[in-house]
């Protein structure tokens, strides 16, 4: 019944429109006919924009093609049905031809291709005079009688309404169908769509063709309705009005184009008496609608009216996994190589992932793990090598790889955000849709089946993504850091899940940083460093391999230097937080965190991945807003201020991943660091101060002096980190925050970096440091806080914490186990 409601509404609407058209003056019928035709084009455009997310500013071209094909045929005495069909087919065919170049480009580039198309059609109609009648158009196009019935305005209006109704019902059916969901999937994430075996090019082309054909059909009726067509009937502005109709009505909603058509056709009629002021008012009112209803009128109304009742996974759904398609097969990777701009990201990588086993791919950051995964998954085309399942898949596009039985998940989850949880899984599923719920139960998802994937909590996103991958019934499952950002308990459940998946006969290939997880469930571990395999074997063997320890875990033996004498400064904190609570979406990542940092002190913020360390840094620096609780910097509350104001107040953050300005020179990067000094850097004295600091920093970081005029993007990772720290110091901050400075750096560089941090500390720079290498951080810090699940669970002097067994168990324990 619920599903039939929109269809019923469409029929009621159609009935009302028909009644109005038959009862009113012929002017009313004429307006209704135009609204219906605009709606018809809008529905077509909605397939393109609403379902696949492609914009077209050229639909008036298809409308014109339809009108001319039908007009010419009718003038030659053809029957009406033939004229309609021919117009739709012709427009659809042109749509197909345009899709070939159009779908190679995106965003504003696509807009330009469609604009160009509209102008080509307009001028083509003017110049092809022998057929189109040139600028003065075609006259006397009369609708031929259909089954003895003369088609006057009222009959034409009924025909228009009937066509629009059919199109609307068709759109409804399409949107609810597997094909429609596949189009939505392409709109939400092309990457993920490919990984469930969808071919985005085919889907987008299909949408383009359907959309063009509907516009052509509308044009085919427009010609005999007007009885006269000329290029002037199809101005470029009409294209914009069509798009307006969809956007104003609500792209992607069933009724959006209808409401939009009412606005763009009806509103000017209401304003007719304003004569020359009509366009001015019309433009103004359109703006008003856009401001009031940015999701479109229907979208906005639906958001306010529709209250969804959650539908959790049923307890009796039965948790079942699907058997993989075909017999179990090993995934064999042989000599896989790829280079980006001369850097060999992967160089002769070979390994085998056996069915029924968990194979893990580990290595330090930047070792090439995700690159290898992307080559297996078909997102990168390898320069050399083979990926064999039942055949060699190297270089095949992602959707073909997925169809061949290799499913995957992503580092940052790639769900179809606007689709419901259940639809995310169903899209990958061939066969019984009920299996989707069983799969979700199998992976341990217990939430709402109808919730849009965008609204899910992090852990649920991971689980749904795995369920979706499993719905492909793959032979091989690739997982890219599935445990990142999960809490311990969730990680444990994930480990069990992966084990069960492998036990069902799949080859599981895991890229993961969490050593406890990797060592706990892997049958086989492959270690990558700098794009090469440096070791492979059982977890115990790999763990004992000295090459692995040196490359991967060596950072733990860095040479941070503690302060000579214990810190003893002012007790008045530079930076204080009380009850700091922050997060993304519903669940807070930070929960009532209180900490303070005193002048000249070095404080470390420790915790496992996902404990909230980076979130704390973002909340303190103003990158994450809003936050609850108090944040005070040098006696001023900053909890509500934006990042740039906080920066100017003297808090400098050296962000995770360094984030230097790659196209600017090292010098420019450093000088931008001084930007936050504002007025203080201006004038003679200010400039001299900046110059002096600049000089001092170059002395501290001699490698930066050598590369002063090089682009920052060309520096090595270590040099970029030095630059990021130096850039932060150029601000002469009251406090310097460092977020994961050691991430992805070679051990020698890490040592050098921490030496510099110790120096800075000794010179009295106030530091707040977050680093995954807790032991190292503790050597530099005076004090430390330990975060767990967004709360401070421990605080104390660095020396005490370093020896604390509880801390080692909770945090370092995982690392220690790995080493």
């Amino acid at each position, binding site marked *: 019944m619920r599903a039939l409601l929109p269809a019923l509404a469409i029929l009621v609407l159609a009935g009302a429109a028909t009644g109005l058209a038959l009862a009113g003056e012929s002017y009313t019928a004429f307006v209704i006919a135009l609204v219906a035709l605009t709606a018809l084009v809008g529905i077509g455009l909605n397939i393109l924009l609403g379902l696949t997310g492609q914009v077209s500013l050229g639909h008036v071209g298809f409308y014109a093609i339809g009108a001319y094909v039908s007009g010419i045929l009718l003038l030659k005495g053809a029957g009406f049905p033939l004229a309609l069909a021919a117009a739709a087919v012709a427009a659809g065919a042109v749509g197909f031809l345009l899709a070939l170049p159009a779908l190679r480009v995106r965003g504003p580039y696509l807009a330009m291709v469609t604009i160009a198309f509209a102008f080509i059609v307009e001028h083509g109609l003017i110049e092809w005079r022998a057929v189109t009648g040139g600028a003065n*158009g075609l006259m*006397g196009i009369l609708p031929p009688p259909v089954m003895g019935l003369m088609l006057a305005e009222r009959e034409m209006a009924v025909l228009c309404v009937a066509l629009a109704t059919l199109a609307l019902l068709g759109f409804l059916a399409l949107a609810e169908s597997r094909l429609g969901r596949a189009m939505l999937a392409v709109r939400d994430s092309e990457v993920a769509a490919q990984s469930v075996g969808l071919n985005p090019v085919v889907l987008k082309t299909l949408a383009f063709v359907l959309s063009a054909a509907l516009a052509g059909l509308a044009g085919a009726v427009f010609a005999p309705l007007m*009885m006269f067509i000329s290029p002037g009937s199809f101005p470029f502005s009409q294209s914009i009005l069509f798009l307006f109709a969809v956007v104003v009505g609500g792209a992607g909603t069933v009724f959006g184009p209808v409401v939009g058509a009412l606005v763009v056709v009806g509103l000017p*009629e209401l304003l007719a008496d304003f004569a020359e002021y009509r366009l001015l008012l019309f433009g103004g009112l359109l703006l008003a609608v856009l401001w009031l209803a940015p999701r479109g009128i229907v979208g906005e109304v639906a958001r306010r009216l529709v209250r969804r009742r959650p539908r959790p996974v049923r307890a009796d759904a039965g948790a079942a996994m699907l058997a993989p398609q075909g017999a179990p097969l090993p995934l064999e990777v042989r000599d896989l190589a790829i280079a980006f701009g001369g850097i060999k990201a992967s160089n002769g990588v070979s390994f085998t992932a056996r069915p029924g086993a968990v194979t893990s791919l580990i290595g330090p950051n930047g070792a090439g793990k995700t690159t290898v995964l992307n080559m297996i998954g078909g997102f990168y085309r390898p320069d050399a090598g083979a990926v064999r399942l039942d055949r060699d898949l190297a270089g095949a596009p992602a959707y073909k790889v997925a169809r061949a039985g290799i499913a995957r998940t992503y580092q940052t989850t790639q769900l179809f955000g606007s689709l419901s949880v259940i639809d995310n899984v169903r899209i990958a599923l061939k066969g019984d849709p009920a299996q989707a719920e069983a799969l979700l139960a199998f992976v341990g998802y217990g939430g709402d089946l109808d919730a849009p994937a965008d609204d899910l909590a992090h852990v649920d996103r991971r689980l749904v993504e795995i369920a979706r991958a499993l719905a492909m019934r793959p032979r091989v499952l690739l997982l890219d850091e599935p445990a990142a950002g999960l809490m311990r308990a969730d990680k444990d459940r994930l480990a069990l899940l992966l084990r069960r998946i492998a036990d069902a006969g799949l080859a599981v290939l895991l890229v993961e940083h969490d050593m406890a997880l990797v060592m706990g469930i892997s049958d086989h571990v492959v270690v990558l460093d700098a794009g090469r395999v440096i070791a492979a074997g059982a977890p115990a063997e790999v763990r004992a391999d000295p090459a692995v320890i040196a490359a991967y875990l060596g950072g733990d033996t860095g040479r941070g230097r503690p302060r000579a004498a214990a810190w003893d400064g002012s007790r008045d904190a530079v930076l204080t937080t009380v009850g700091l609570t922050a997060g993304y979406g519903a669940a807070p990542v930070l929960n009532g965190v209180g900490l303070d940092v005193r002048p000249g002190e070095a404080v470390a913020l420790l915790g496992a991945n996902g404990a909230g360390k980076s979130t704390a840094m973002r909340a303190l620096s103003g990158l994450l807003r809003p936050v609850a609780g108090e944040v005070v910097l040098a006696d001023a509350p900053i909890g509500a201020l934006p990042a740039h104001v906080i920066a100017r107040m003297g808090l400098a953050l050296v962000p995770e991943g360094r984030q230097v300005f790659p196209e600017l020179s090292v010098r420019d990067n450093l000088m931008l660091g001084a930007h936050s000094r504002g007025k203080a850097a201006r004038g003679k004295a200010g400039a001299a101060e900046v110059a002096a600091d600049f000089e001092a920093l170059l002395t501290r970081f001699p490698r930066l002096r050598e590369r002063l005029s090089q682009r920052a993007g060309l520096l090595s990772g270590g040099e970029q980190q030095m630059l990021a720290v130096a850039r932060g110091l150029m601000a002469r901050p009251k406090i310097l925050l460092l977020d994961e400075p050691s991430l992805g750096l070679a051990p020698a560089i890490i040592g050098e970096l921490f030496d510099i941090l110790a120096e800075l500390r000794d010179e009295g720079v106030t530091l707040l440091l977050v680093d995954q290498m807790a032991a190292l951080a503790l050597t530099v810090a005076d004090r430390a806080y330990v975060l767990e699940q967004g709360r401070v669970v421990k605080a104390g002097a660095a020396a005490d914490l370093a020896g604390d067994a509880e801390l080692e168990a909770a945090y370092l324990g995982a690392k220690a186990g790995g080493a």
Partner: protein
Amino acid sequence: MGIFASALRLPRLAAAIGLAVTLAAPARAQDTIKVGLVAALSGQSAKSGEAITRGLQVAIDEINAKGGVLGRTFELVRRDDESNPAKGLLAARELVQKEKVVAFFGGIDTPVSLAVVPFANSSKVPFIAVWAAGTGITRNGAEENYVFRVSAVDELVDEAMIDFAVKIHGTKKPGLMLINNPWGESNEAGLKKAAGAKGLPVAGAEKFDNADVDMVPQLTRLKEAGADTLFLVANVQPAAQVVKSLDRMGWNVPVVSHWGPAGGRFIELGGPSAEKVDMVQTYSFSGKLSPKGEQVLAALKAKYPEIKTLADVTPAVGIANAYDAMNLLALAIAKAGTTDGPALRKAFYEIGPYVGLIKTYETPFSVGNNDALGKGDYIFTHFKGAEIVPVGQ
């Protein structure tokens, strides 16, 4: 926050729309005779719509001041067609069916008028073209033709232009410079036909767009093809560009133009050489005016204070055609004694003589000829400073 803000804003939109609707429906007296206008009031051709409006309004004020017709006064209802035939047809339907106009006037664009013609004939409401010169508008093949015109007819203008050029400039090889729009296209056919009738070989037909700044390539091709006179069909701005391009080429060639340049500040835009261009006109407010001319000019100046000099009374043809057409319509209504369409149509053929602005109409319309102006009513003029004067003065 979003919900509250929007909730506060919603009534404002409602108020805006309400205001729009109220303004759109000012109280109207029951006993007026409504006449309509479907013309380009916005966009590139807005000036033409304004001129027609002024001509009609001055005529209506005059008639109403004398007590109107059949004891009722006239009221003008205007609609913007945005130069789009589809919008024009929609507006015509609205005027006839909702506003119940007894007759309506058309604007500058021939395609818009062509789109309206079948509707005018089928709904039996007279449609009077006061600018668009496309031949097929009045010669539309309908048995009962409800379309009349007080304006030039392209085919006749084209003949007149060729005749004039042969007589004055001794033209042997015409070169056509045409704006790339429906108007240019229909004159291309007309000029070629007229030249053919005189046995003149056409050197070529070149097109240009409204926003083009350089017509040297087109002109050079005509020059190389041996054109000895240029026939120009374009509105004032592109026509000025043609003159400037001729200057840049240093090509001194006679130019005979359709009435486009008269519709604006041709000398200001085209420079002194623009004075050499001969233009077809149906009317000009320059020079010594007839008493009727003086009277209308005074009325225009009184009603539209922004009209200060003769350079502001443009385009004169739009004003004059509309003024005469409105008066002819009033005469027809008076003659018919009713505003009923079929009776009105018959009455059109029975009116006259009428001393108008453009000329004295003896029998403006007759069965088979729905055009009030003919070949003999065109005068050839050129700019002298900001004024338009007949050729030879």
